[in-house]
């Protein structure tokens, strides 16, 4: 029997099903006569929960990371909190009720208080209150979720929470199947980082899978096969072998820079949003960083990051990459990225509104802090500063003025400044068609295909009803990308692509053909893209570009490029 799902972590796994069923937790009102006994029971449970958390902190630190372990430290602090404990004790003694009910009432009260705050950082703390309260309730009721599984287990559950994953032994888990959770859910991220195949959105009914069933998890196509036949087993053993081989083929030469068969060099870089895991990104083959999204330094906090804090982050990143290029983009706040402490007004069309460089040039003090931190970090690596959402030459000139004034101030203070390049995103159609004019003022262009596409075809990329119109094979978009590449060529500056389309294997012949110099993408895609580029010749792609641009529809272009891509393998 086959059940469909969505792949969240690629691979093929063979194993035995294990249903992780959370036992029902009874938190209903139950009267209690011995309130003193109940309070003692509460304190025993708090102690037990704290011991569990201590072990989880240690395990998480060793197996996943220090940052991930901190969440459990915070949970431990909540169990020490006098207001939290007092509230539970008061409910027990005043209402003469059992412990579980009192904890549940306290959880609800704090959850409501945190959810009611007008600050997203604080609202997210509600999840911590919930996780730790649930742990405490289970300790009170002596509920132990059995997650001690045999080796070769394919885990099946509704969803994995941070505390569940921390309690599992990754060496014994062959695969993970969840009923809920998408590609960015906690369980998907953990599965990917541990390289365990996983699929989600799988409908599990009683009867279709049971603990002990033999399973094949096809996390390439997103299918679960229950109790496979002999021929299915052989079939999937072949696929797995092919997949593993393919991965190892890609790994050959992944650390080297790429030349096409006829010697055209393209840089394949990574998109990053923090200074964590830089070493892993280098190990995945990144020739540099093509997009460091700095807005994430501004999120989940109460005030903007200071000069020192930003300087340290940029310096860390630059040093890790040595002489490899690192494009750091100044904050792109606004649009879908809201930050409470900046008190931005609600807008009818946030993507057409107050965002990115428009905020920077309006709130120059905020912007100058970031520019200063970048210039201070410039001596430590190969820095390229990039500006988002430039729509006019005036903005570009004003931006350069800000840099000059920060530079003058720093020179007065004798702060050393290193070499750096200045570039801009091309993500607004008006810029793409006038790229020649902009090229005079910058050292490089980076085409942001996500926004360029949504502005070119007037389709909100968040609107699911319009998915069919949002295609990066749109001839209008490809024509525009070509114009930007040509303008870069004429001005003698380099041109990169940093949107999602940069990692689409189908488009590589087109990019090579029009003379793109750099592609920046999610680090996991780098090895495969490098491998594919090594099988292309630049001289043969001119006719591909001409043919693509002669076609009339996205569908025709997609079909043509897909067929072409298959013939290369």
């Amino acid at each position, binding site marked *: 029997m086959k059940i469909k799902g969505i792949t969240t972590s690629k691979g093929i796994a063979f194993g035995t099903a294990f249903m992780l069923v959370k036992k029902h937790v009874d938190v209903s009102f139950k009267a209690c006569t011995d309130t003193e006994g109940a309070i003692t029971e509460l304190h025993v449970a708090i102690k037990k929960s704290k011991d569990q958390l201590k072990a989880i902190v240690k395990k998480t630190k060793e197996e996943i990371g220090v940052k991930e372990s901190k969440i459990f430290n915070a949970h431990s*602090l909540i169990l020490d*909190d*006098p207001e*939290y404990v007092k509230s539970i004790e008061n409910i027990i003694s005043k209402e003469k009720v059992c412990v579980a009910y009192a904890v549940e009432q306290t959880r609800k009260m704090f959850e409501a208080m945190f959810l009611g705050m007008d600050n997203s950082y604080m609202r997210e703390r509600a999840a911590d209150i919930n996780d730790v309260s649930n742990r405490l309730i289970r300790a009170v009721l002596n509920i132990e979720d059995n997650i001690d599984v045999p080796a070769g287990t394919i885990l099946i559950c509704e969803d994995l929470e941070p505390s569940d994953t921390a309690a599992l032994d990754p060496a014994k888990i062959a695969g993970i199947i969840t009923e809920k959770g998408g590609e960015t859910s906690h369980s998907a991220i953990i599965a990917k980082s541990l390289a365990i195949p996983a699929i989600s959105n799988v409908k599990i009914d009683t009867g279709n899978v049971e603990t002990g069933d033999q399973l094949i998890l096809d996390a390439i196509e997103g299918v679960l096969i229950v109790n496979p036949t002999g021929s299915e087993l052989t079939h999937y053993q072949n696929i797995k072998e092919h997949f593993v081989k393919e991965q190892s083929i890609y790994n050959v030469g992944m650390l080297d820079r790429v030349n096409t068969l006829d010697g055209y060099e393209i840089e394949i870089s990574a998109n990053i949003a923090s200074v964590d895991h830089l070493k892993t990104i280098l190990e995945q083959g990144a020739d540099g960083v093509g997009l460091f999204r700095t807005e994430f330094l501004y999120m989940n*906090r109460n005030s903007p990051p200071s000069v020192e804090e930003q300087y340290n982050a940029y310096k860390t990143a630059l040093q890790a990459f040595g002489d490899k290029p690192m494009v750091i983009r100044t904050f792109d706040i606004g649009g879908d990225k809201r930050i409470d402490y900046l008190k931005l007004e609600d807008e009818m069309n946030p993507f057409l509104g107050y965002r990115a460089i428009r905020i920077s040039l309006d709130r120059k003090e905020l912007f100058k802090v970031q520019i200063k931190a970048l210039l201070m970090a410039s001596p430590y690596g190969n820095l390229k500063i990039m500006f988002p959402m430039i729509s006019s030459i005036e903005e570009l000139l004003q931006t350069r003025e800000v840099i000059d004034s920060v530079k003058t101030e720093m020179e007065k203070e004798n702060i050393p400044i290193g070499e750096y390049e200045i570039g801009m995103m091309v993500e607004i159609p008006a810029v793409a068609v006038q790229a020649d004019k902009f090229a005079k003022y910058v050292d490089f262009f980076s085409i942001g295909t996500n926004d360029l596409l949504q502005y070119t075809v007037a389709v909100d990329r968040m609107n699911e009803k319009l998915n069919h119109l949002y295609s990066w094979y749109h001839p209008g978009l490809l024509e525009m990308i070509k114009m930007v590449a040509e303008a870069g060529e004429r001005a003698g500056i380099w041109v990169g692509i940093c949107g999602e389309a940069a990692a689409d294997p189908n488009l590589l012949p087109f990019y090579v053909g029009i003379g793109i110099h750099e592609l920046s993408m999610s680090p996991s895609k780098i090895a495969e893209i490098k491998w594919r580029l090594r099988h292309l010749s630049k001289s043969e792609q001119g006719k591909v570009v001409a043919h693509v641009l002669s076609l009339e529809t996205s569908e025709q272009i997609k079909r043509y490029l897909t067929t072409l891509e298959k013939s290369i393998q």
Partner: protein
Amino acid sequence: MERYEFVLENEHGLHARPAGLMVETCSGYNSAVNISKGEVKVNGKSMLGVLMLAASKGDSLMIEVEGEDEAEALVAIKQLIDSQFDE
């Protein structure tokens, strides 16, 4: 009872890390400590309470310490505030 009013100077306000330090310091003394911002008053020994103040840079806060070791407690708390929570 000892009272102390001050303006929060540290860059990131009283969120997770500085709030933790405040709670740790207050919990080291027997005296009761209350922190208030405007009309909201919370227990200085409670992590959830201090977080709930959501105090940011520039906010004016009032500390009240009451108990046998109130003088020592206030000295320690002032030190923490003056060091801008070691940031």
